[in-house]
């Protein structure tokens, strides 16, 4: 089966800056794919390379097997939901949604019907006559979504789609986007710097750093089996243990990662001193000092909490100490 989106040795340079530095990537049809990374890691540039707003310095981007080198954005079978939504301020909501159809020469009545249908799809029926400036952030987001979906793209690109929304709305939209993607079956590619968002929504995640993909895999993969210290640190907030400590704890002489929630208080475990405590509601976060190494532990509700300065004993299940590749 051909990939929905394929990157082959793609590079994008801006002068001396290598924004994308040799990316190979294959996104399957129907996937909900997340590009995760800190700002400046090259994830947004990759999205823009798929949309056609940027052209690769070298390498090739193909969509459903067709090379996109000479295809401008307006002839690519992809559509984008922009981070700031980019709704046309001079058009009302309906004309915004129908814009692509208008440009394609669709008749006015058909346009209107399709636009209204798309507005219903994103749960904004009857909003067609409003101006974008009269809508809330969440509503604008839905209009932007409808405007892209009405074009029936083969791949939908979302650039930090939930970044501008408040927490509650964000969680709601996460669920809606997931449901929408399942129902429509379109390939979704979305860019985010929020690891929680990437893990909860995507089937597959590519973690970007310094213009490269450092790890790609299922959310479980990147969360439980990070291949490099960067992934372990960026995805979640793992305790990163240096090679000498890993070796002492029974691993090899490599970096290892230990999830805070995997750490338990067990008599007979490794001795550590409590240096800080923060109540988080569902759990409590303990900061510990183990032979000069800082370890964070997340203790579930109901655990007997030690006091500051107290010495405790900690341990974890054998599989929880995740060993990374030696070279990382």
């Amino acid at each position: 089966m051909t990939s929905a989106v394929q990157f082959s040795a793609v590079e994008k340079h801006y002068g001396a800056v290598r924004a994308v530095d040799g990316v190979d990537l294959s996104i399957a049809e129907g996937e909900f794919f997340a590009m995760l990374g800190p700002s400046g890691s090259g994830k947004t540039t990759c999205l823009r390379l798929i949309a056609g707003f940027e052209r690769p310095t070298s390498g090739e981007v193909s969509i459903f097997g067709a090379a996109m080198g000479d295809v401008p954005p307006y002839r690519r079978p992809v559509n984008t939901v922009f981070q700031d939504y980019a709704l046309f301020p001079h058009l009302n909501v309906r004309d915004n949604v129908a814009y692509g159809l208008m440009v394609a020469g669709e008749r006015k009545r058909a346009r209107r019907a399709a636009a209204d249908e798309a507005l219903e799809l994103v749960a904004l029926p009857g909003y067609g006559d409003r101006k974008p400036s009269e809508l809330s952030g969440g509503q604008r987001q839905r209009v932007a979504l409808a405007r892209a979906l009405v074009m029936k793209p083969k791949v939908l690109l979302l650039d930090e789609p939930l970044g501008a929304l408040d927490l509650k709305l964000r969680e709601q939209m996460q669920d809606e986007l997931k449901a929408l993607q399942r129902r429509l079956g379109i390939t979704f590619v979305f860019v985010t710097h929020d690891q929680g968002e990437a893990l909860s929504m995507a089937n597959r995640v590519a973690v970007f750093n310094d213009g490269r993909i450092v790890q790609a895999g299922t959310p479980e993969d990147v969360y439980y089996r990070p291949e490099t210290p960067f992934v372990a640190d960026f995805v979640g907030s793992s305790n990163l243990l240096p090679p000498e400590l890993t070796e002492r704890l029974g691993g090899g002489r490599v970096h290892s990662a230990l999830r805070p929630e995997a750490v338990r208080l067990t008599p007979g475990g490794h001795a550590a001193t409590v240096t800080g405590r923060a109540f988080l509601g569902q759990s409590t976060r303990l900061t510990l000092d183990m032979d000069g190494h800082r370890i964070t532990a997340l203790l579930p509700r109901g655990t007997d909490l030690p006091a500051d300065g107290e010495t405790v004993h900690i341990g974890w299940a054998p599989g929880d100490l995740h060993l990374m590749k030696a070279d990382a």
Partner: protein
Amino acid sequence: MRSSAPFGLKVAAIAGLLFLHLPILLIFVYAFTTEDRSYQWPPPGFTTQWFAVTWNRPDVWEALWLSVRVASISTVIALILGTLAAAAVARTRFFGRETISLLVILPIALPGIITGISLRSAFNLADIPFSFWTIVLGHATFCVVVVYNNAVARFRRISGNLIEASMDLGANGFQTFRFVILPNVATALLAGGMLAFALSFDEVIVTTFTAGQQATLPIWMLEELVRPRQRPVTNVVAMVVVLVTFLPILAAYHLTRGTDTVAGSGK
């Protein structure tokens, strides 16, 4: 918090505004005076007869018509040049961007007499005879900046994403220009165009050097100022010129109100 202004400041500010406006209002009074030999104040009497006299003066009409034609064509040229340059400068960073800005502003940053005598020397050296087009050449040169300033401000406000969104939705470059860019910059261009028209309509310094025998309305007025022959007609023309230039300025103000464009900052 905005407290109320100190009394002295208020007085100084209002006095300043009056200083700016009373002289212009005075023109309106003089247009109705019965005195036709001197600038006597207070006017000995009031009459509207000078309006009829002015109306029947072919030389005034000729000058007016020439000014309108020069201003129209200069405005069109300035609109094209200024808009294109603004689009390039506002949208991208490229080598020589600053140079373009400087080049556009130079014709009004240097005194008008420099522009005027430069053009005149160039016409002399190149053996170009003075004509309608030599006037237009000069006017378009200093009108570009007005359009440019208005357009650049507006282009900067169009988020780059709007253009990408349009292309993303299937519009090619020309469609994007027509359906997204133009609707969003139209009022700024209209305002810039009106101000360019007003600037050209009123210009006298460069024109004296590039006009040859032809008289635009400001040239006609200048001759009257230097050697007054028909004071009442001049009074009436002055009043009409004030009214005519106020209209595009007010229109431009309404078109750019509530935006970051300062309509006149380019003059």
